[in-house]
């Protein structure tokens, strides 16, 4: 029997990586917030790899942190290994990647949630979203509890009508054996729903692995952290291990491929290309002699090891046979079987860039529900949705991240402009203003925005101001400081670089290939924090590129600002081509800038719209 269970400002449904950030943001912004989860032990669960960060994902974590989010903090507190990737490929694409103690991460996040003012956490499966006149009014749980809410943030992950598939076996389930959310129907709310699929490899017993046949992979000796606020000495790090599949592994897969649900057609969901199962890889690249397999610890206090590279939905007997064909895994004992999981998500074209649904006021969506994949992608959307739910209730200006502000902005803009036909993963290639969106300047880009909405503490804000000043000051100083040939030629010679004849500005030294701040420091540098020095050398080195990208941003700035009306019938605009009108009506862009990025909309169509709407305003 349904009963009234109280009123909140914001109810967050789901306590995965999106839900945690959304709930924290909303509560920290002063909104009375309720976080509901199907299982309290599933809070901040890393259902797949024991890792946070990676290329472009590391950027997202730093952006979440700069806005005042939690993921970076918790990851810094629970790392088992930390590594800066791509250090040789340029400052813009460097990214931090960490191995995590999963349980410790969860514990940190849960403890943070439990001790956040204005935030309650409860176990419940949400069965219904209540709406009135196109506005959300609350939710009802499967046990009949009704909560009133001014805003609801849905972060259902892979729980919504989740189905786990292992070979011929299939069962209604959430991830890691947790209950699925089977009662809630988004179609009932009038939403367009799609079905996606993802998968995870087996976990095996550390004691049954022969590490002598594998190559150890270590972290950085001097770890850097995700959060701009994390300080402290480095802790002990643990290696991962690299091994390779054999031709025999591929034979086993080929021999049994007919038993794969992916190839027999019993999985209907669309899977991600960048996260292929081992059978996908073997089928698609038959000529590749071997595939990498990384063995990664799931935690300090467990023998479970994650077998990265071997996710699969083949039957369990085939899985065991093929895993045991890999050097070092000959006698491996399975602790958890690899599986594929299918789930409901929405077509993200139904969202605004605030992550609010266009058609249901006060209902926000974040994470895998929006068609993305990855913990970091989820967290980034979570914090944006949480902030905007709070701003919506307060009646204040929402937070919209543009493509030139953040990877998170690229992510959301891609989702709401292009939709996605497969689980969307953040990639460096997707960010056109990559040289502006570096991980080293995430705080310089976003702290002000976090401050505006009230998520950035005084301590964080002070640290940001100090860094900003230090970077600017040093850039100016180096631009003016002149060094002579006698001062620098010894260093240049040592580096195998051609000497200088005339005196040069210190800044121009940093533009030379292979010269870092540390090299000029004894000559003309000052004592700087490592991250400040890095930012200075990067901004000097890339100055030309940065200016070029900034000019591009400015060129489109006014288009990005020009608002388009909601629910507009573009067929009414004379002169617009039919294809463009149909696309525009389907996407419902919020700005002219967004309209410009819709495929099938030409510059001419944008001109027509521009005239049409400026005429109307007059």
């Amino acid at each position, binding site marked *: 029997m349904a009963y009234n269970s109280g009123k909140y400002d914001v109810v967050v449904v789901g306590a995965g990586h999106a839900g945690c950030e959304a709930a924290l943001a909303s509560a920290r912004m002063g909104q009375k917030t309720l976080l509901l989860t199907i299982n309290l032990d599933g809070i901040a669960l890393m259902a797949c790899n024991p890792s946070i960060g990676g290329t472009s994902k590391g950027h997202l974590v730093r952006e979440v942190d700069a806005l005042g989010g939690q993921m970076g903090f918790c990851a810094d507190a629970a790392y088992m290994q930390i590594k800066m990737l791509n250090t040789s*490929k340029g400052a813009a694409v460097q990214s931090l990647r960490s191995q995590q103690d999963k349980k410790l991460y969860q514990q940190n996040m849960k403890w943070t949630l439990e001790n956040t003012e204005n935030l309650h956490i409860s176990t419940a499966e949400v069965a219904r979203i209540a709406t009135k006149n196109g506005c959300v009014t609350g939710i009802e749980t499967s046990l009949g509890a009704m909560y009133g809410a001014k805003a609801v943030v849905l972060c259902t992950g892979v729980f919504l009508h989740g189905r786990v598939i292992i070979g011929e076996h299939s069962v209604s389930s959430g991830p890691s054996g947790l209950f699925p959310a089977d009662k809630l129907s988004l179609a009932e709310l009038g939403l367009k729903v799609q079905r996606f699929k993802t998968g995870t490899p087996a976990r095996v017993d550390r004691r049954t692995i022969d590490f002598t046949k594998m190559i150890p992979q270590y972290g950085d000796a001097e770890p850097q952290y995700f959060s701009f606020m994390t300080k402290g000495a480095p802790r002990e790090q643990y290696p991962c291990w690299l091994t390779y599949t054999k031709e025999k592994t591929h034979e086993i897969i080929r021999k049994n491929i007919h038993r794969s649900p992916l190839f027999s057609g019993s999985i209907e969901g669309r899977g991600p290309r960048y996260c292929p199962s081992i059978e996908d890889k073997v089928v698609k690249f038959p000529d590749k002699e071997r595939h990498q397999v990384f063995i990664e610890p799931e935690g300090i206090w467990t023998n479970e090891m994650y077998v990265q590279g071997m996710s699969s939905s083949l039957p369990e007997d085939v899985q065991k046979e093929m895993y045991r064909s890999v050097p070092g895994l000959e006698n491996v004992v399975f602790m958890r079987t690899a599986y594929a999981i299918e789930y409901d998500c929405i077509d993200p074209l139904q969202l605004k860039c605030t992550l609010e649904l266009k058609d249901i006021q006060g209902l926000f969506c974040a994470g895998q529900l929006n068609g993305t994949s990855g913990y970091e992608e989820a967290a980034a959307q979570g914090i944006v949705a949480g902030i905007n739910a709070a701003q919506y209730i307060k009646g204040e200006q929402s937070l919209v991240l543009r493509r030139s502000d953040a990877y998170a902005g690229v992510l959301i803009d891609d989702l709401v402009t292009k939709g996605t036909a497969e689980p969307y993963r953040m990639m460096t*290639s997707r960010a056109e203003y990559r040289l502006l969106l570096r991980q080293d300047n995430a705080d310089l880009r976003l702290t002000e925005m976090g401050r505006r909405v009230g998520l950035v503490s005084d301590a964080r804000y002070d640290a940001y101001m100090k860094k900003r000043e230090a970077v600017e000051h040093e850039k100016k100083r180096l631009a003016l400081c002149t060094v002579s040939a006698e001062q620098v030629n010894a260093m240049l010679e040592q580096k195998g670089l051609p000497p200088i004849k005339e005196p040069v500005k210190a800044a121009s030294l940093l533009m030379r290939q292979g010269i870092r701040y540390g090299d000029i420091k004894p000559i003309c540098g000052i004592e700087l924090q490592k991250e400040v020095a890095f930012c200075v050398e990067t901004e000097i080195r890339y100055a030309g590129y940065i200016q070029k990208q900034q000019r591009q941003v400015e060129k489109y700035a006014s288009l990005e600002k020009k608002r388009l009306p909601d629910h507009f019938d573009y067929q009414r605009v004379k002169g617009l081509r039919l294809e463009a009108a149909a696309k525009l009506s389907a996407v419902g862009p919020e700005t002219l800038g967004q309209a410009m990025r819709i495929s099938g909309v*030409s*510059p001419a169509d944008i001109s027509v719209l521009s005239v049409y709407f400026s005429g109307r305003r007059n």
Partner: protein
Amino acid sequence: MEHEKETIYAPATPGGGAISVIRISGRDAHRVMNEVFFCHVKKMAHAKLYHGQIRYRDKLIDDVMAVIFDAPRSYTGEDMAEIHCHGGRVGMSGVLAALSQCGARIAEPGEFTKRAYLSGKMDLSAAGAVMELIEATSSAGANAALRQLSGGLYEKITAIQSALTDALAIISAGIEYPEDDIEADIRRDAMPLITFAKAETEKIADTFKSGRMLRDGYSVVIIGRPNVGKSSLFNMLLSKERAIVTHIPGTTRDAVDDIIIKHGVPVRLVDTAGMRRGADEVEKIGIARAKDAVKNADMVLFVIDRSAGVTGADKEIFGALGGSVIVVLNKSDLPPKVSLREAEEIFGKKAVEVCAISGMGREALLKMIDPPDIGDSEDVVITNERHLNILKAADESLDMAIGAFDTADLDCVDVDLKDAWDRLGEITGLTVTEEIIDQIFDKFCLGK
């Protein structure tokens, strides 16, 4: 419109006439005019024609008439200006160069009309017609037209783009998946693709010259200090060819261009002597003109008065020349002060002895004027200046990408390549991001 911030310029009249009109439109149109145009009033009034000079960095470029229009009382609805300068490529190019130095950029085809449309200067009822026009100039619409009109250009450019996509996929795969064992050496595998793209881009860009040659002729400019006999030489070269000479109409004011045909290519002779002279600045103008004329010339006939020897003024003019130059030793009927060999040594160029009055040496000189044979090449030839500019910009980005391999980092290479791709996309109307991502996953086995 506020998003059309850049100030643009373009010739509004076809090349070849005696007078060319150049239009300027945009927020900075009046500032640009103030920087290059000098006349008797301090502030020009709306829609009044003024006589004055175009100067850039104190250098006199041309004697012109000019007018400005205040927004919104102009064709585009923006601040506008018009310059009526001397016609032909030589006359106009100096003015165009000065405008671009002042921060304006060359307009895309139809851009003035587009701006007029966007400013609401055109009625929406005219939308249909205007849209077609704009559509033709927009990248998507241009595609179809392009394929029909320029034959293989679209295919050529997409081939370059596809090489760049492959290079980008190699680089991006390395960046996105630093720990995967991609069996690719980024530099080794990407570089040939980039150099191919660059070579192709340059090859197509180079065809603009022959394209221009077919349209405008192979231009041969006659240069020299006053009274060395430039006009006589001009007449001598044309004299016996009157039957096949076409007089370009409308050049009476300059009376400098004329055409002879050499193996199918029109050769256009330009006599700088015929240009209008400011009373006291003859030398200055001569040198300035020489510089501009030479910039667009395919060949220069540098004339000296052999009986006077090589003077300081000769050397000064020669110093401004470059490219293909023939030294013409005129007045060879008079006692020479310089020999053929001495002249060739002094200038380091081939020389020829003529007497313009008698016609002596004419055949030898004509033989030396030798335009390239571009008769029946099947290759794509570009004639559109916008395409040339796009190709040049793409080429520049490719140059930077190659440089960045050595002097910067992979992320810069990637940005430059994308830049080049996007530039070429202005011709083909394609965009890059999804293509690269598709390529990455088609080419490499990646992901965990």
